[in-house]
């Protein structure tokens, strides 16, 4: 008796999620708003550098762009929207029953949905590569640093989307899922701000480790701090684990 593997089910759910995300206006709307924000951010950065060329030597335009406040702000906006429907919508519509009674494991469903959100997130970032290319025409671009910056964004996104996924599983309503996710992400953001508020000490250290601003700042300078990656991936794994438990618990609820 061959034990069925999880992969075909995972791939099937992944494909469906991607299709549903991109045939409905949601992903396109997010892409539009997201790129608008990024465009404004990039414009401000370039404008700044054309006027004050000599001000900061250790910070180029690409780096300024990746460490700008626009980024946490856009993450706060797109991550909850990307994940809100993942489970809440299926429960609302009742499609969850057909999905979970197919020969596919809860883990495969959870991971497929998560991967779909994560790749959509990556796709949203893809067009911003153009900014780097534009900058390259005007100045030198340190590609490893650019890679580190994108890596940092991906790590933060991975954690945030996992939180969103969990929140989507916790509620039947997409609106509630968005609000819960935003609340948690905003809480994390505010906690990070603590680094700049508190006196040196344990509290400040904790805040520093959590701070998304410091993380993006580090990575945009090419400083790949493994502790931050560990934090992000732990957060993501914890949320994924909890989501699997939540999905399993529906059977017994």
């Amino acid at each position, binding site marked *: 008796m061959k034990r069925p593997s999880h992969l075909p089910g995972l791939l099937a759910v992944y494909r469906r999620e991607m*299709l549903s995300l991109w045939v409905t206006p949601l992903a396109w709307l997010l892409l539009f708003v997201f790129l608008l924000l990024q465009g404004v951010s990039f414009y401000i950065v370039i404008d700044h550098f054309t006027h004050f060329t000599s001000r900061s030597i250790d910070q180029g335009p690409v780096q300024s762009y990746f460490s700008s406040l626009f980024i946490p702000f856009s993450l706060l906006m797109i991550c909850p929207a990307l994940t809100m429907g993942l489970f809440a919508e299926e429960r609302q*519509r*009742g499609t969850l029953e057909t999905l979970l009674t197919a020969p596919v494991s809860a883990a495969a469903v959870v991971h497929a949905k998560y991967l779909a959100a994560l790749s959509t997130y990556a796709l949203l970032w893809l067009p911003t590569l153009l900014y780097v290319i534009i900058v390259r025409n005007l100045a030198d671009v340190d590609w490893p640093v650019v890679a580190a910056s994108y890596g940092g964004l991906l790590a933060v996104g991975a954690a945030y989307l996992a939180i969103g996924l969990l929140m989507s599983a916790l509620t039947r309503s997409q609106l509630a899922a968005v609000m819960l996710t935003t609340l948690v992400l905003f809480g994390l953001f505010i906690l990070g701000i603590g680094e700049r508020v508190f006196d040196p000490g344990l509290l400040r250290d904790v805040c520093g480790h959590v701070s998304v601003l410091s993380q993006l700042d580090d990575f945009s300078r090419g400083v790949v701090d493994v502790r931050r990656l560990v934090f992000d991936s732990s957060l993501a794994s914890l949320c994924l684990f909890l989501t699997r438990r939540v999905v399993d618990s529906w*059977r017994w609820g």
Partner: protein
Amino acid sequence: MKRSSQPLKQVPLEQLPLNEAPLNEVPLIEVQGLRRVYGQLVAVRDVSFSVGRGEVVGFLGPNGAGKSTTLRTIVGYLGPSAGKVRVNGFDVVEEPLLARQAIGYMPETAALYPEMRVSEYLSFRARLKRIGKRELRGHVDQALQKAGITTVVRSLIGTLSRGFRQRVALADALLGNPPLLILDEPTAGLDPNQIHSVRQVIRELGATHTVLLSTHILSEVESTCSRAIVIDKGVLVAQGPIAELRRRRGSQRALLTLHDTRQQALGLMVAAARVLGVTPVASTPSMVPVALGRGALGLVPDSVEPPPGGGGRSVPVGAADGHAAVVSFLVSFEPAADGHECLEDLVALLVRSGVRVREAKLQYSSLEEVFRVLTGADAEAT
């Protein structure tokens, strides 16, 4: 999931046939002592039944009886609070994926993704059910054909009518030709034409699949199923072949047509009943004549009365004026009685008393009545 099944190599040779052959004899569904609790509410208590291969079984019960809960436990959407459920020999809790692979399930809601096209949806479901890339097209086409929705392949599910959506869900259940089909209220919310065609489809499927369908409509079971399982308030109240269930009703009635000129025909009937009532020969003795005579054969057409309601007695009119008359009696036997035996005894008695019995026919009660009795609706009504 934790317990992995043994690889074939390690199984001793003499056990191999045990693992393979009886699989076909193992009932497709085995439910043992199933109990399901929602918080304080016990939705299903100690339900046991099994469904063998090739059966078409109706799962009957009023709304809220625990039908959907039971079906959802079988398909693995809900876990049992206690008891065991096996599908195709696999425990639904311990081997959920293997158990589910044998099932084509159509939930009551028939909820689908409105943004997908029918073809996209069915391809997705086929992939979920591990149908290989090469066979996928063929499987989808076959399911579309069986469900009769080849015309809407390209339509967005969101634009389809309820009837078509139901059929898309049915096509989904058929994908991959699972041996077992579980249909939860397949005709709910459809118009009469659609209901008719869905039943037609179910009957056709019954020839090649094992089907378990739930419904609260008895005629549906009568028209599609060979066996019924009746559940009420979470308790299994009856199960058996449809005919057996009818027999269980116990309130069989018989229509007796006597050809007799004598006024005492009715009296004889009553006497016969009384005699039968005390005769130890008849194992199922007492019998109550409920009704009523009806003048007939045009001999005394004017005196034909409408049958009185409420089972009251009336004197057979035709017999009253001494003409030869045909008189019909409707007799009903006691609930526990065996209708056939009672009728035989009654006819024998009447004939012995010199009454000419023209016709004696058992009337089967409708399943509706069976259902009312089994689920105790009668007790509530009175």
